[in-house]
């Protein structure tokens, strides 16, 4: 409760007047001689009490009249913001906008943001001239700033939907922080929102409620510019079979079509796949017609692409036609088709390289499928003569320790960005491998050969090297591939990452970063055939598919293929790794919409970091002119959350934030009513005057009855 003119409450002190009159100026009573007083005396006490009660009742009524009058003149208001000692304080208004892509929803030829802007402009005119105002949106600019009227109008004019938005709770927090800085002002939040449940989640509500507690006088006006029953088709996130392909391999694109709102009777939706061609234009490579059966139930979409030429390729999947929310009708993608990565596999004997070689590039399917790797098998004796730089990765399968010079060349190779995998086995010699040269690459010093039978049991499958196993982590029957022997290591050096362990907890696969490359040590062999006292049955057990997945994952990681990401969400930082032969001083970033930006590189910079990824679409990074020295690309899509148009229940919001603190308005009239109620509260003046009249009547009645003349 608040008061419009609280000073008049002081008038209540006038109740002292009837009290003083009661105490000092007792009413003059008529006197009579009455001989039969003895009958009166016998009932005196009871009557005196009754008399006192009546007098007190009259006094109370008279005091109540004065109090009610003072109270009524102070104009009390119910549920107004004029509380906590800020009665009559000027208003400070924080205009908070949800300018996420959802607000681009079009209804009546107007986006939700346009409607919000229109209402906000009107609201700005209604606010008092000296009212501090700020405009806060979900853009990257943090914190609220004091704006004068024209600056606020300019901010409103420039307000646009953005694919890169901060969390909604952070935006609200900024508004709350700004209002808290407005001392001696009553805070008012004007939150322009589509009331999407994705934004008004539990976390946001809890956080905002906590902020509101710090602003006791503030009121929240939720201005709902959303659509009660939205209708939209959206393409979900694209799931590519791979972002880096080898020539001739198949690309599979999977996604979902999600419908929101009532599905039209003939709701056939056509989805098209486009991919760029050699001329740089877009060519339709696929089309599907889907019928969405039920709201919210995704319809699966799958496209396959083959015969893509080497190089960077970009395309998109789109819904034909237009709906109310266009931003989620298109999904962009970028893939890179490049020659298979070259892997050097070295063993004491060429036979030792067999299992790994077959796992990476099976000879059985050589004519049918293009492998991701081209394997070159050599003996340890030949290693010294090989140019390591020609390979993307080098794997040593159960090697006898090579000479120190060889270790050094391997170390140099890793330093310059290469990957070396060392699979220890029966030929490993502890003392030699514990020498400084090998220890530059090995994860730790060797302790002894352990004969504890165990099996591999990777737990930290988040590591990129195990990405291939991630989807089926629980289904891999590792225990069917026992490990009989392995090298137990001393405590690994700092910076060494344990990729996988055995079931007994001992480390099995460890990674060590050396320079800009990486070295992986596996503590058991991958070259032992089953019949000859094998160290394990990983490659030689029945149906050894886990080994295939593990070997491919490890070597892909060593060769740097796992680093290749070309598809990002808006706002994410894009990292593009440069190959050693790509020596650049600058590049041109071609953004969607044909705008291009030239960027410089520092000497020796091995990766491009691109942060301006707000625009949805396909980006191209080029350098070196027509000769095509660098031609890469990436795609930016909007988060799936931006398609979730389901609305939050206002009752839930009000319950979380406090029902007396938050008001919902849909149009100007409702805003006027609610803001009036919010600031002034519900005026109690008429009720109080009626109450006072009743009390006055009761007082007159009782006084006449008590003091009849």
């Amino acid at each position, binding site marked *: 409760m608040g008061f419009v003119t609280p000073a008049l409450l002081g008038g209540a002190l006038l109740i002292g007047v009837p009290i003083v009159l009661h105490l000092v100026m007792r*009413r003059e*009573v*008529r*006197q*009579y*001689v*009455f*001989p*039969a*007083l*003895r*009958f*009166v*005396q*016998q*009932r*005196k006490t*009871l*009557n*005196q009490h*009754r*008399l006192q009660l*009546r007098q007190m009742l009259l006094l109370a009524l008279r005091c109540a009249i004065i109090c009610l009058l003072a109270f009524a003149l102070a104009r009390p208001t119910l549920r107004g913001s004029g509380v906590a000692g800020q009665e009559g304080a000027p208003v400070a208004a924080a205009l908070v906008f949800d300018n996420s892509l959802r607000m681009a929803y079009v209804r009546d030829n107007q986006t939700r943001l346009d409607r919000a802007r229109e209402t906000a402009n009107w609201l700005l005119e209604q606010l008092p001239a000296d009212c501090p105002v700020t405009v806060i949106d979900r853009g990257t600019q943090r914190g609220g700033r004091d704006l004068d009227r024209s600056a606020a109008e300019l901010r409103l004019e420039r307000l646009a939907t953005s694919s890169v938005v901060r969390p909604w709770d952070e935006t609200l927090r900024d508004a709350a922080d700004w209002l808290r800085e407005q001392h001696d002002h009553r805070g008012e939040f004007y939150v322009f929102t589509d009331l999407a449940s994705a934004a008004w989640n539990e976390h946001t509500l809890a956080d905002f409620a906590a902020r509101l507690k710090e602003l006791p006088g503030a009121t929240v006006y939720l201005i709902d510019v959303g659509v009660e029953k939205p209708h939209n088709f959206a393409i979900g996130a694209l799931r590519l079979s791979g972002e880096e392909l080898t020539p001739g391999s198949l690309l599979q694109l999977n996604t979902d079509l999600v419908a929101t709102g009532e599905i039209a009777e003939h709701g056939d939706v056509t989805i098209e796949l486009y991919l760029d061609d050699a001329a740089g234009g877009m060519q339709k490579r696929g089309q599907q017609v889907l019928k969405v059966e039920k709201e919210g139930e995704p319809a699966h979409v799958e496209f396959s692409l083959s015969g893509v030429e080497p190089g960077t390729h970009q395309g998109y999947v789109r819904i034909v036609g237009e709906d109310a929310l266009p931003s989620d009708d298109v999904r962009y993608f970028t893939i890179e088709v490049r020659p298979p990565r070259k892997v050097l596999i070295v063993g004491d004997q060429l036979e030792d390289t067999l299992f790994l070689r077959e796992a990476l590039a099976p000879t059985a399917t050589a004519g049918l499928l293009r492998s991701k790797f081209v394997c070159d098998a050599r003996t340890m004796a030949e290693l010294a003569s090989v140019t390591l730089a020609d390979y993307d990765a080098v794997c040593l399968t159960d090697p006898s320790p090579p000479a120190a010079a060889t270790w050094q060349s391997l170390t140099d190779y890793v330093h310059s960005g290469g990957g070396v995998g060392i699979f220890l086995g029966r030929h490993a010699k502890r003392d030699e491998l514990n020498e400084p040269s090998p220890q530059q690459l090995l994860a730790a010093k060797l302790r002894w050969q352990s004969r504890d039978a165990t099996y591999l049991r990777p737990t930290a499958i988040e590591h990129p090297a195990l990405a291939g196993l991630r989807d089926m982590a629980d289904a891999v029957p590792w225990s069917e591939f026992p490990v009989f022997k392995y090298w137990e290591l001393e405590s690994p050096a700092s910076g060494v990452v344990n990729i996988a362990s055995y079931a007994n907890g001992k480390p099995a696969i460890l990674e060590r970063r050396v320079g800009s490359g990486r070295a992986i040590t596996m503590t058991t062999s991958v070259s032992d055939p089953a019949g000859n006292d094998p160290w394990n049955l990983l490659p030689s057990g029945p149906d050894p598919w886990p080994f295939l997945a593990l070997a491919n994952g490890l070597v892909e990681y060593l060769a740097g293929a796992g680093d290749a990401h070309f598809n990002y969400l808006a706002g994410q930082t894009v990292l593009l790794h440069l190959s050693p032969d790509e020596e650049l001083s600058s590049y041109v970033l071609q953004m969607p919409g044909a705008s291009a930006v030239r960027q410089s590189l520092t000497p020796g910079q091995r990766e491009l970091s691109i942060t301006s990824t707000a625009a949805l679409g396909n980006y191209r990074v080029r350098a070196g002119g027509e000769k095509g020295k660098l031609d890469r690309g990436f795609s930016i899509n909007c988060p799936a959350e931006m398609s979730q148009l389901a609305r939050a229940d206002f009752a839930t919001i009000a319950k979380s934030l406090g029902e007396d603190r938050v008001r919902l308005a849909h149009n100007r009239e409702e805003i006027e009513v609610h803001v009036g109620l919010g600031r002034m509260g519900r005026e109690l003046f008429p009720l109080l005057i009626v109450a006072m009249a009743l009390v006055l009547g009761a007082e007159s009645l009782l006084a006449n*009855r*008590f*003091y*009849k*003349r």
Partner: protein
Amino acid sequence: MSTVEKYLKPEVIRQISRLDLRAEFIVKGFLHGLHASPFHGFSVEFSEHRKYTPGDNPHDIDWLVYAKTDKYYVKKFEAETNITGYLVMDLSQSMAYTYRQELTKFEYSICLAAALCYLMILQNDPVGLVTFAESINNCLPPKSKRQQIGNVLSLLARLKPQGQTDAGRSLIQLAAMLKHASLVMVFSDLLADTEPIISALRRLRHGGHDVILFHILDEAEVEFPFEGLVELEEPESNVRLEVDADSFRGDYLQELSSFRETYRRECFQSGIDYVPLDTGMPFDRALTEYLSMRRSRG
């Protein structure tokens, strides 16, 4: 109402200043009315004989007269002329009270006493007068001569109520004074402690006296006509009390009723006639009471 009967009304009697006239008017008015009343036949005509009426003792029929006239006559009044009456007046200050500024309780009592005196002398009954306050002040011995009316009335006219009263003590004193069985008529507002008065009345009764207790209150004391907040003062003790009259009226009337009921009950048990009166009531009630008593003594 006939011209004579109006004199039974206190407001009419008030306008007559002479006490003897007042008494005469009251008695004449009363007797005039009595002829038409159910008491018709209870003769006060002072003849030797009167017609027999059912209810009279058949032994009283004068057969000689019957033989002469062939009508029943009874002869009774010779014995009845010997009732000695005492008019006992309360002289307390409270008796001087009147709310409407008309007849005070004392004046009312005097009128009544004078009328009774007049009536008794008419019947040749000896009548005396006793006045008391804290004790007996005056005592006029009973006589049946006609000039006794003048004596009684002149004494009554001189009386002035003042000071406090002790009715109980005075009545006990009176009981000790009376030698023969008499009719004692007490006029008082009885505004004192109940117990001593009742005790004294019993003592009188035990002394073989017939007692009629005329309990005379002011109209205001019976009706409590006050309204609003009032301060009441007791004239004898000067005690003051502030009360809300409206709310108190019920309690007061209840208390008064209880007070009168106490006297009625106690008097009934002791064979005393209790006659509650107020200054607004006609005088015939009191006279009728006297005559009833006289008749029962006959």
